[in-house]
């Protein structure tokens, strides 16, 4: 009777189930980077929208066409930089743990992530153009959370609880519409950094 052998067997079974069915190369580091870029983006957006208002009071926004374009540029910049660093760290992790970056699991993960993400993105864009800018922050948080939960069956399980947190935060932000940017900074900035660090240390990479 050898306890250690069985403990190792259980570990092997879990490891094999994960490796053979999930996209496990997702790096916590990419979460941390996305969080940092989001905070920078939120700061720049803050400067653009609220440059002459009190810090902790209810906010109203007066979006001119010009500031709208700046905001979209900031958002695109955040997405682009997050994607680049995300792909970089994930590629590096895949090499380290000897996994193929692009296989059927990566594909399944991305497809399942994209469905809520793209729907939410298009919806937000339409609302923004129709003048409902205040709903953008809550909606992007909610749809991003739904995307994470939907994709979590195909990747590291931590992303599921991150998704649920984003949804809750988005719902709160819908109630406190004027504080959208703060919720946005917490959801995309802080939560990403916290979960990224957690995933990084939890998975030792």
């Amino acid at each position, binding site marked *: 009777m050898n306890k250690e052998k069985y403990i190792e067997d*259980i570990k092997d079974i879990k490891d*094999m189930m994960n490796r*053979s069915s999930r996209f496990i190369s997702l790096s916590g580091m990419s979460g941390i980077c996305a969080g940092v870029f989001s905070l920078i983006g939120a700061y720049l957006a803050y400067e653009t929208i609220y440059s002459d208002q009190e810090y902790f009071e209810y906010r109203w926004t007066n979006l001119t066409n010009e500031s709208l374009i700046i905001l979209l540029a900031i958002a695109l910049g955040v997405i682009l930089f997050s994607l680049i660093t995300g792909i970089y760290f994930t590629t590096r992790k895949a090499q380290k743990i000897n996994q193929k970056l692009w296989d059927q699991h990566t594909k399944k993960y991305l497809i399942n992530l994209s469905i809520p993400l793209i729907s939410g993105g298009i919806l937000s864009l339409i609302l923004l153009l129709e003048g409902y800018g205040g709903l953008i922050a809550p909606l992007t948080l909610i749809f991003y959370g739904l995307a994470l939960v939907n994709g979590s069956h195909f990747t590291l399980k931590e992303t599921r609880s991150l998704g649920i947190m984003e949804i809750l935060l988005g719902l709160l932000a819908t109630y406190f519409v004027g504080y959208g940017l703060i919720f946005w900074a917490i959801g995309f900035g802080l939560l990403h950094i916290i979960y990224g660090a957690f995933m990084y240390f939890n998975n030792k990479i």
Partner: protein
Amino acid sequence: MKNILKDLNKAFENKVRLGIMSALVVNDSLNFNTLKKLLGVTDGNLASHIKSLEKSEYIMVQKEFIDRKPNTKYSATEEGRDALVKHIKAIEQLLK
């Protein structure tokens, strides 16, 4: 204690066979090369373990052709799934 030992499956005492079953229960099917890469074993080694699992009727073999090249896919049978679940439960009991 005796009951627990009865549920421990001899077929899964080997690491390669345990690995094959673990991978197959969470996938609809996997082909030979994917299994080989996942487990990091040689062709001959994998083939012999697959054969023994096939004999126990824990896995099913499907042969098909992709671009005229043979592609053999393996999947876990209902029996195989049950056997692995029982085995895992038995180990958990033992470790308690």
